[in-house]
């Protein structure tokens, strides 16, 4: 299984993204980071930490579960329902510049669901997308604003992101599925 990002590279990518965010968004107090469950959440927290280190500003962070907005729910005749986890956005997103964070950008369907979900929480001034890995193969007109690394993949491969908070180590690898 080839490792495409190791721990040092992940941490450099996130630090760079934090700098890019501050470069593009001058009103820091308008920012909010919302991670898509599961691995977008620790990534959002790490980026918030990086921003704090750069300019001592606390960007509020939240967690979004998109399960109930998926476009493939109820379409299969067999199998259990996907697990629903809690959405926790403890602040108003009205007039905020929301930075949506996910680990891997692939078909774009998760982001489509996340946009639908977010809009129901308020009317943000803008939504920007941060992903650790963009692996291509988009099925919807969706593009990331900040990318940790572009990783060309075959549709038969799968990209596995491991993060210390959840998996005990930081690593991104490609698996033949």
């Amino acid at each position, binding site marked *: 299984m080839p490792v495409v990002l190791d721990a040092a590279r992940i941490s450099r990518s996130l630090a760079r993204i934090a700098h890019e965010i501050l470069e593009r968004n001058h009103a820091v107090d308008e920012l909010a980071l919302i991670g898509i469950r599961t691995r977008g959440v620790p990534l959002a927290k790490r980026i918030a930490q990086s921003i704090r280190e750069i300019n001592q500003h606390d960007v509020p962070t939240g967690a979004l579960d998109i399960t109930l*907005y998926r476009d493939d729910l*109820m379409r299969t005749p*067999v199998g*259990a*329902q996907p*697990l*629903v986890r*809690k959405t926790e956005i403890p602040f108003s997103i009205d007039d905020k510049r929301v930075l949506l964070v996910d680990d891997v950008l692939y078909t774009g369907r998760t982001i489509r669901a996340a946009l639908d979900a977010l809009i*129901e*929480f308020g009317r943000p001034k803008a939504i920007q997308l941060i992903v650790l890995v963009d692996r291509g193969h988009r099925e919807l007109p969706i593009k990331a604003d900040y990318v940790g690394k572009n990783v060309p993949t075959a549709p038969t491969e799968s990209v596995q992101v491991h993060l210390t908070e959840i998996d005990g180590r930081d690593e991104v690898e490609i698996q033949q599925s």
Partner: protein
Amino acid sequence: MKKDLLGIDDLTGAEIHLVLDTAEAMREIGQRPIKKVPTLRGKTIVNLFYEPSTRTRTSFEIAEKRLSADTLNVAVATSSVLKGETLADTALNIEAMAPDMIVLRHASSGAGHLLSRICRSRIINAGDGMHEHPTQALLDAFTIREHKKRIEGLKVVIVGDLLHSRVLRSNVLLLTKLGAEVWVSGPPTVVPAGIERFGVRVSPRIDEAVEGADVIMMLRIQQERMNGAFIPSLREYFTTFGMTEARVARAKPDVIIMHPGPMNRGVEIASEVADGPYSVILEQVANGVAVRMAVLYLLAGGADVD
């Protein structure tokens, strides 16, 4: 999860925890400015209620609407049931209009099982006679778990009209499955014979039963199901089995008092207790919506359909 939710008896401990965990996520939806998710768009749910109900029917309807299902209520008082149609015929006629789920409340035990056999739709039992009321037990467990962070090892005392209570049966099945120590107390005339076989302790003296309890669950005196002399008088019942502040004081200091509603104040529960700081009765109602959303969501998927 199976196709239908007919009773707690059909659920494993893991499935119960899945419902409760899913309900945690569902509860957050009720706190949003727009309390709606698109999950059950295009699904049709019929609420078929053969018994009066405010809480359960409203709760199911709100849960269905928050998940974007199309819902309709069949009120038996204005339906062809009054013209002599059987439950099976009514169900088959509703089924001919292709709903996805039927939520059934009926005075006969096993009514849900009958529909389950003849209907393609998912059936959710919202209370069948003196048999089960699974969503009530699930919302009770959710409320207990929220306050106590666990269910295993808790002393839960259920007091009241045990014989006529489907809430009791579902709760006993659920709480013993999850490892709680369940005590029941009530007048001997309404203690079902052989109830010990469900793994509960029976005490005819409420003061002994509530000693050191973590949770006290009061049951309503169901006068509509009592066609015999079960208790001498409501006043005497209150003296012997009513939950008073003095009795609450015998339980643990952090005890919670539950009641599935509707309450008979001054019969099974004193008003000071119902409105007291340890009372979680209205939380139970609030949690009911989240738990029913969880059940609807989990059953709507492609579970093992026959």
